[in-house]
């Protein structure tokens, strides 16, 4: 069976991370599995973790009392799920549901924040990677609201 730092090393998000950083981060990691249909987190809950998706399919949803759940994004293998652990008040903004059986590595946010505070090189790397993810998502959201296909 692969160790947690090996799993992190294989993931697109951590490409280029040094082995010592991966080892440090593996100390904050646990393997998790979500069944199809299972909610990974719900809007408003504490965001003290983020997920490195290894296999599966997750939707981000907003619940509208009139229309029910509306899927606004999907994440898959090699994506990361959740950035609310980085910023106060550390609460989820959406619901996240596994559509298929999903395997991921859960990263403890508090543990990671402490490690990033103590090792600013690691902190900078993490911020850089998350900034790229956020910029990509922002760009996609802009296109989505543009009604790109009309």
């Amino acid at each position, binding site marked *: 069976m692969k160790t947690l730092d090996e799993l992190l090393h294989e993931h697109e998000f951590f490409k280029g991370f040094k082995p010592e950083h991966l080892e440090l981060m593996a100390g904050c990691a646990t393997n998790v599995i979500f069944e199809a249909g299972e909610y990974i987190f719900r809007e408003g809950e504490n965001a003290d973790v983020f997920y490195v998706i290894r296999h599966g*399919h997750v*939707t*981000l949803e907003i619940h509208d009392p009139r*229309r*029910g*759940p*509306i*899927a*606004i*994004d*999907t994440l*898959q293998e*090699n994506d990361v799920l959740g950035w609310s652990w980085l910023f106060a008040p550390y609460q989820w903004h959406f619901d996240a549901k596994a*559509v298929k059986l999903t395997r991921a590595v859960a990263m403890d946010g508090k543990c990671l924040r402490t490690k990033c505070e103590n090792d600013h090189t690691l902190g900078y790397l993490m911020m850089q990677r998350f900034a790229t993810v956020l910029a990509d998502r922002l760009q*996609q959201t802009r*296109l*989505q609201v*543009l*009604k*790109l*296909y*009309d």
Partner: protein
Amino acid sequence: MINLTPQLKTQQLTDPMQPEPFRVKRVMKESYDTFTLEMEPVNSERLFTFAPGQFNMLYIFGVGEIPISISGDPNQPAMLVHTTRIVGAVTKAMSKLKAGDVLGVRGPFGTGWPVSAAKGCDVVLVAGGIGLAPLRPVLYQMLAHRDRYGKVVLLYGCRSPEDILFRKELEKWRARFDLEIFVTVDYGDSDWHGNVGVVTKLIPKAPFDALNAVTMVCGPEVMMRFTAIELQKRGVQGDAIALSMERNMKCAIGLCGHCQFGPTFICKDGPVFTYPQLQSWLAQWEI
């Protein structure tokens, strides 16, 4: 390097200004605002040969004439097929046609998709909304000669699951082992278990060899612009990206100037162009 330019040839016509009467055989509702017409010539046994990507001018008597791409199978020339989205007066009048009604057809006009240049390459089709209709003939053509191409990948984006065109056909194609079909919607309801997000999001993970791929992109201009950027980020060369442009048309044979876009006429030099041919004009206003 894959160069698509020499593949884009215009088919010549004998009397391009004279509409020929065609009778509607069948009307199919594709979605709440999109329909497909199957038609046959009224007066002749004419077989309607065309290259995927070409369009016809469809004349609804007493209402007007508009350009619509051919969405049928190039290997079935006995039946002319068009898929149209209702946006204004002519498309609305066209949506009211029934089996047996007659309309005028001029064409086919314009350049086609670079289907021959794609031989031996992976082929990636990126469609947005109604943009799937002009690309469907490419899929028919490739399926008829499947061994000539590498991977054939369709990335299709639309607003919502209700907007998906040719749903049954897409499901059938998706079940094949020699086609890769990915559909994404901007917003999904609880019944939707597929991808959510814009079509450009599918590009980084789509299974194709960027250095040996021919890509064909069809949809609204903004979508094509961002798709071309994303394809290049993935490593696709600009001249391996073909786009289909739309402008209002009148003559469709390069005489009236209605469809001018920068230095080109869309009807005669296009509608299919390579990205480098259009790149400097695409982001400019009022062109």
